[in-house]
């Protein structure tokens, strides 16, 4: 399936290649560079590129391109999903996945790649299994290895997870403090039009967990109002049938961080929009334009809106902006023409405002449309959908774990058309 993988950095340097079948010369990447040249920005590169004998399927992540070469028919999503999974694995191992990290740990990276695919088909992908086969870099271990002269980087026995029915969990996990934390994160995707009415709004939720429990705990998580969730996807550990019948999340959790579930609440449902913008942006012939934006809280259920950031991509003809913000700092990038205003917390008593002048290139016509403003914000201790965890029960182990649930709402793709 996947024939070869090339990792390319932003400057067009193919700094790593791995072949699972016969070797393909890296000149194949020229086709990729050609497509890259045509695209106006890195995100615009088409994920699937057709060349005379090969097909290049690529993803762009952390300023790196991962280009997979395939020669035969294959579901493209299979490859794309796998490339993302490779990146996730690297992030899991090294906390981040960028050029310098990959170069620093190239041996482990190469070993991981070798283990993940066999003949281009996934072999061991589960992070729990991989981590037993190839140990993540660890300072202490490096020292002991150097001192003892042994290498413990790779394991000689097959991890039990690979053969078990629950490959995501290894046996014999032990913790002094048994804890289970659940973060319920909801992201609001919305488009607000000029007049402030909501064009479309959806909620995307995730339940991210950090589970540090000894042994083989079997957890059940129940919600107060599970019916809210109409479309869900689960980590393989969740027993789907119990969810289907009883709306209960029942699972033997993986060890450590993982995403238990993500859900989507579609555009048909009402979504509370926590912020509004009051804006006047106008351009005048010759003299530039005026910019005046105020941010205010809307339906926040009494919670404070924090970490508010506004991003205004101005048209290319704009030379500069001179603004004064009543709160926070702003910056203008003259190359990308993006003005970023870091507002911080919204104080309801005195609404944050930014105003000033826009300078336009002399001679160029005034822009015909106003920019679309991207808004970011965070509201803690609230889930906008109203979802609430009822209880968490643990079976199969004797001890009492420490449990915690946290709710966060934040902006996803929140856009205001002006």
């Amino acid at each position, binding site marked *: 399936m996947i024939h070869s993988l090339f990792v390319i950095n932003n400057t067009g*340097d193919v700094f790593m290649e791995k072949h699972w079948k016969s070797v393909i010369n890296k000149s194949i990447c020229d086709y990729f560079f050609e497509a890259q040249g045509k695209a106006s920005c890195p995100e615009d590169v088409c994920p699937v590129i057709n060349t005379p004998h090969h097909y290049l399927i690529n993803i762009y992540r952390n300023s790196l391109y991962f280009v997979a070469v395939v020669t035969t028919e294959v579901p493209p999503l299979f490859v794309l999903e796998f490339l993302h999974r490779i990146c996730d694995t690297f992030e899991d191992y090294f906390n981040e996945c960028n050029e310098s990290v990959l170069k620093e740990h190239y041996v482990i990276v190469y070993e991981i790649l070798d283990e993940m695919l066999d003949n281009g088909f996934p072999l061991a992908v589960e992070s729990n299994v991989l981590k037993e086969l190839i140990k993540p870099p660890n300072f202490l271990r490096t020292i002991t290895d150097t001192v003892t002269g042994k290498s413990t980087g790779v394991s000689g026995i097959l991890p039990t997870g690979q053969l078990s029915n629950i490959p995501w969990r290894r046996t014999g996990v032990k913790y002094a403090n048994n804890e289970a934390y659940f973060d319920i994160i909801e992201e609001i995707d919305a488009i607000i039009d000029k007049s402030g009415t909501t064009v479309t709004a959806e909620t995307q939720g995730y339940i991210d967990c950090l589970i540090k429990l000894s042994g083989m705990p079997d957890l059940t998580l129940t919600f107060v109002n599970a019916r809210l969730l109409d479309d869900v996807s689960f980590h393989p550990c969740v027993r789907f049938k119990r969810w289907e019948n009883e709306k209960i999340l029942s699972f033997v959790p993986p060890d450590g961080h993982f995403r238990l579930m993500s859900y989507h609440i579609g555009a048909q449902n009402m979504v509370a929009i926590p912020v509004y913008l009051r804006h006047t942006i106008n351009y005048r012939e010759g003299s530039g334009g005026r910019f005046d934006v105020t941010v205010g809280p809307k339906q926040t259920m009494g919670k404070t809106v924090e970490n508010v950031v506004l991003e205004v991509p101005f048209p290319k003809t704009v030379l500069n902006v001179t603004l004064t913000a009543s709160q926070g700092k702003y910056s203008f990038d003259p190359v990308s023409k993006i003005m970023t205003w870091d507002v911080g917390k919204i104080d309801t008593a005195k609404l944050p405002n930014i105003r000033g002048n826009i300078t336009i290139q002399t001679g160029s016509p005034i822009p015909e449309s106003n920019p679309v403003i991207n808004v970011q914000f965070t509201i803690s201790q609230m889930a906008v959908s109203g979802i609430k965890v009822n209880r968490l029960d643990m079976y199969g182990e004797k001890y009492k774990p420490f449990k915690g649930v946290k709710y966060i709402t934040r902006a996803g793709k929140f856009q205001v058309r002006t």
Partner: protein
Amino acid sequence: MAGNGFQTSYANDKPPSSTGSGEAAEMSTDPASSSFFTSDFKRHEDLKAMLDSNKDTQKLEAMKRIIGMVAKGKDASDLFPAVVKNVVSKNLEIKKLVYVYLTRYAEEQQDLALLSISTFQRALRDPNQLIRASALRVLSSIRVSVITPIMMLAIKEAVMDMSPYVRKTAAHAIPKLYSLDPEVKDQLIEVIERLLGDKTTLVAGSAIQAFEEVCPERIDLIHKNYRKLCNLLVDVEEWGQVVIINMLTRYSRTQFISPNQADGQGDADRPFYEDSDKEDEEEEVSEMKKTPYMMDHDHRLLLRQAKPLLNSRNAAVVMAVGQLYHHCAPKAEANVMAKALIRLLRSQKEIQYVVLSNVATMTSRRKGMFEPHLKSFYIRSSDPLHIKLLKLEILTNLATESNISTILREFQTYVTSPDKDFAAATIQAIGRCASNIAEVTDTCLNGLVHLMSNRDESVVAESVVVIKKLLQMRPSEHKDIIVHMAKMVDKITVPMARASILWLIGEYSERVPKIAPDVLRKMAKGFINEEDIVKLQILNLAAKLCITNAKQCKLLCQYVFNLAKYDQNYDIRDRSRFLRQLILPGENGSALAKYAKKIFLATKPAPVLESKFKDRDHYQLGTLSHLLNIKCHGYQELPEWPEVAPDTSVRNVEVVMPYVAKTHHAQHKKKKETKSFYSESESSQEEETEDSSDEEEDESSDEDSGSEENSDDSEKDLSKKVSDSDDESDSDDDESDSEDSSEEDSSDDSVEKIVTPVKKQPKTKTKSATTTTKPATTSSADLLLDLDDLGPSGGSSVAVTPAGGDMLTPTLATGISNISIQDTPVAQIIPPSTVQPKSYELLNRMTGNGLSITYQFTRTVSVFSPKMVSIELKLTNNSDDTLTNIKIGDKKLQSGMEIQEFPEIGSMTAGMSTSCLIGINFNDTIQPAKFTICAGDNKHSVSITAPVGELIQPYSMSHADFNTQQGKLSGMNENSGKTVIGVEKDAKSICLCVHSVANVIQVPGSAENVYRFSGKTVGTGTMVLMSVVVTDDDAKITVNCEKMVIGSMLLKDLKTSIAKS
């Protein structure tokens, strides 16, 4: 510190292609390693020395550096001899790196690579499964054609390996060998066939992948494994799921008939899920043309098993299920995937791109499915261009009269986008909406005319082109637009737009008789500076005007033709020559010239503006070929549905022996099973029977849940390992034990609970039967009661849809054991599954105002509560109207009785039939359960009475147990009688008679002509024992049951059944 060294060595290995100056700079910063760069030769000398040293640390460092070169794509092949020596290294990490190096360079250094082969051959017999597997991996990856026989041998051995991990590796090795030597295909197919039979989830995906790469045309290999694959599907790892679903989609297309053939309208008949016999099925096939469409059980099985995977976190799996439903499901059911696909739109942009292109194809055919999700396709300014274009395409496809106004409003904002390519695409989209939906054509035209005064050139040009197409559809009404456009011709510079205007003026010159010649005059003036496409249109315009208005235009026309005659472009020269002959014929004018007007001013068909994605739908969705719209190498055409379904029996797996399981039985299976594992040495023969019994399980019931199957397998692995006394197996065993216990602890109030125990049933039985049928069953009776207490409390929290319910329902005929292996298997045991469930009428269509309902006893454990009898209702709407809100209304029940209702059925269109499951706890009485069925406002009182035999469920026991129990239930509790046998006296017909009366299981026994059956009542779990002793011409029937009413009634029923023929 060591790490630092590697890092620099990696960085220093940059080829000159990167930053030229960087290398020098880095070298100078790291004097230690810079010496390597003085010459390639010297550096490699250094590495060779390190590899030859006898210190592992040195070797490891050298290997790490070499791997750095490999990773970088630098040539390290001259180190091959030095590296290959280390293949025997004891150090695992060195070994691993040597393996990596070998797979990369062995092809180039074949002779030297051969030196390492013997090491791998040795490793193939290593007790450690990981070492065996990795040896096979490397051996098969080194691509040296000389060793193909060795590879073949190794693969053949590995597919028989104990460890599923090694078998998985073997599956991966098959395509490698095939690509190296296609000659061995036949041998490989044999190996694949064996792997396909493998029952572990770990192997399934890889085996199918090997199948797809080597012999995708051998669809016949799948038949026997089809049901197993379907049942395993949920438990296979994600990547395998994708491959399996894609393959099964193709399989379905060849083996089943189209679920949508009955009607093209998309209101497909709802298939129902009832079990019917094979004979029945074949009848159906032959009568297919007349009878309403019935989906093949296996087809249904696939759809049902795949559906939960729509909730997978893996986009590829979701898409695979999506395409399965798109290609193979009845249209009415395909909608389930919409939500899941919409969810994928939140993932990474690359995934969005692929999903959107598939959605675009789907929407070009089926609007309805995604219409409710219209807003999810609204475009954000931050989307990459290719995603914007796809969303635009989808929005256009989804446009209908009702939503067009919102879509157009949305489009309006897109037109002003600073991204001009996107704005232009939006205009095209508006054009398509306008042409497809007549109501808005005028609005759109006005809007587009408005856009022509836009400042941006490309926007204007695109509007002109679109307007041209729209006008062409209805030219009569739009004179002023043409005038307006004629005026704009001076301002517009985009060639395509100019050409479009000229074409319009030429085509409709009669409507603008004054303006047209003037435009031609202006154009003639600037002819030589125009683009080719415009020049051609000027020629066209000239020709047309010359025909309609020769007086004013003939000279102009001649002038233009003359200019064109000397044009640089030969197309234009040709065109001018051709037109001249037609329009301005000489003295001996050509024959065609007379028809010039007809030729040029014929009414032209209006262009059809349709989706670009329309032509893609002959490719299987989700494939690379579909995405690129070209046939990719290795693409397997999706076959058309066959007219008549091929033989369905090919998927049946041989029946060995029946065995009827009992849910409660399994409670303590674990203990028993482990015991028998250790005490028994497993002979291969036994294993074979075990296999077939498992398959029989699949065969006899397509209602098994996947997990059931799976755990069977894992268990089997365990058992193998245990018997193998492999050093690792202990931990495995422990693990599964702990897992088991946790499962049991946790799931006490769940339906799953009921399933979980059952799944291990067959094995247990196998074991206990093969050992000396221990009287363990008595204790299980006690446990059974416990379970009842734990069971779902009246099913209050359980609301199961019929489909979901089916999936969970363990058919009692599920577990099949190989009792045949018993010492003296004299009494033949007849599978109860051969008994056709009787269907009773619940509601007549006359009394029910068109709604007719029949019911039958499924003889399965009810999903709602173990105390309930599971009844399948089949509802048919015989009226001409749609019936709505069908549900169970008031219930008039005796005390102690309970009914679990079916979920309300929203609507049933005329002629539709559907089925659903209800559960009734009869409390071991034959009192009728009375309730009302509400359909809309109508209420119909109905009642269900269970024949006494249906109040029983099979309960298996050994012969000895049977005798003990029978002894306890003598006297008052014994009913016996004699009857003349009306049927043949062979075992089969006797058993059939009994099975048709009561839901019991035969007890294995040794005496001839004595048949024993056992069961328990559903409600209270009272033991029911029956025995039939056949003498010369009559039969003595004995029924033992604590409940005398049941006993006597059962005896009566049995007598009649056996007496009549």
